[in-house]
């Protein structure tokens, strides 16, 4: 029962103040929603985040494994591992398991001595450095909103709102995304969770219901 498309929406982008990371929280098995409250943003260490798309077990395990390897690097070299190094570690591990059926589409986002860093790593062993990424079945919809509203010099609040909106629009159109839109910010002092809003409530915030004429009212039925 391997699902080829990863039923989720995650995104991350670099801007002037750091990295913004956001994701939905729905887990689906075919058409069935198995959970609406999955943590898809994984805290590797206090200054690095990983996003989960694909197999939940695969992502959780290998991110935790990566966290262990990063800590070992710190102890052996007396300095924090860079985002470049961490993503390379993960990519090499995934490459060695290539063809065995792991399903991982992750973004490693963090802040190191060279500033903000963002890499996309997947189960094929691919590793890409970039400024904006979105992963999952809802990613085309998120890219539409993200690419349209992106500017490098945004404030933290503007970037958070852009990320939240992009996730909301993806959950609107994509059936496999939904639940809660979580937004995290990675800055020079590490990551911080900014918000977790239910996408149903975001819908009414962005598109409030206008009072309209009532088409049919319930009335008492006489002599039934």
């Amino acid at each position, binding site marked *: 029962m391997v*699902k*080829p*498309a990863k*039923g989720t929406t995650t995104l991350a982008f670099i801007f002037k103040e750091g990295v913004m990371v956001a994701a939905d929280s*729905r887990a*689906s098995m075919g*058409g*069935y*929603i198995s959970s*609406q409250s999955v943590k898809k943003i994984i805290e590797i260490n206090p200054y690095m985040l990983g996003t989960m798309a694909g197999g939940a077990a695969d992502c959780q395990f290998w991110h935790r494994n990566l966290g262990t390897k990063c800590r070992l690097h710190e102890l052996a070299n007396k300095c924090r591992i860079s985002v470049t190094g961490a993503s390379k570690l993960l990519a090499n591990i995934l490459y060695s398991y290539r063809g065995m059926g792991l399903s991982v589409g992750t973004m490693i986002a963090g802040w190191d001595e060279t500033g903000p860093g963002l890499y996309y790593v997947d189960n094929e062993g691919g590793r890409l450095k970039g400024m904006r990424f979105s992963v999952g*079945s809802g990613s085309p919809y998120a890219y539409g909103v993200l690419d349209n509203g992106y500017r490098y010099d945004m404030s933290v609040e503007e970037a958070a709102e852009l990320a939240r909106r992009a996730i909301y629009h993806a959950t*609107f*159109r*994509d*059936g*496999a995304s*939904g639940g809660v839109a979580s937004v995290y910010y990675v800055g020079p002092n590490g990551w911080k969770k900014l918000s977790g809003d239910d996408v149903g409530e975001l819908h009414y915030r962005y598109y409030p219901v206008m009072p309209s004429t009532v088409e049919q009212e*319930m009335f008492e*039925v006489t002599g*039934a």
Partner: protein
Amino acid sequence: MFMQIFEYNGSALVAMVGKNCFAIASDRRLGVQLQTIATDFQRISKIHDRLFLGLSGLATDAQTLYQRLVFRHKLYQLREERDMKPETFASLVSAILYEKRFGPYFCQPVIAGLGDEDKPFICTMDSIGAKELAKDFVVAGTASESLYGACESMFKENMEPEELFETVSQALLASVDRDCLSGWGGHVYVV
């Protein structure tokens, strides 16, 4: 993502019997596999004031089937000078579906109506016309398993219209919250 033909558009339908009344409800999403196309799609149509038809499954077949059935009912009205009884209409739907036994309409209808002396009538059938009559509730669509569970636990005999409305709505909303392919609110008709 590979999906079956019945899950191409996504749907959720439920009909419930109350005290001299019935309720029929559907979700409002129309999708193409995982992508949502519309959030205000009508799946339930009125045949006459005391007979409603809901069609789940492939949306194009639902629309065509509805048009054919309205046509047949209008002919019946002209000939018999009265509306069709729900039981008769159910037999008509069943016959029309079985005509296409080896190239079927990919729909599951839910029929709800008030018969003589305001006795509520509900039934559902599979895509080739096998009728399933029930005294309490019937369900159809991609969320049908969740709907069975929700209705089974929430249903009570002889509910008044207001309580029936609440029950049907809550059962529908709870079930579509567990289905990627249906949702975006509901249309509920209580007669």
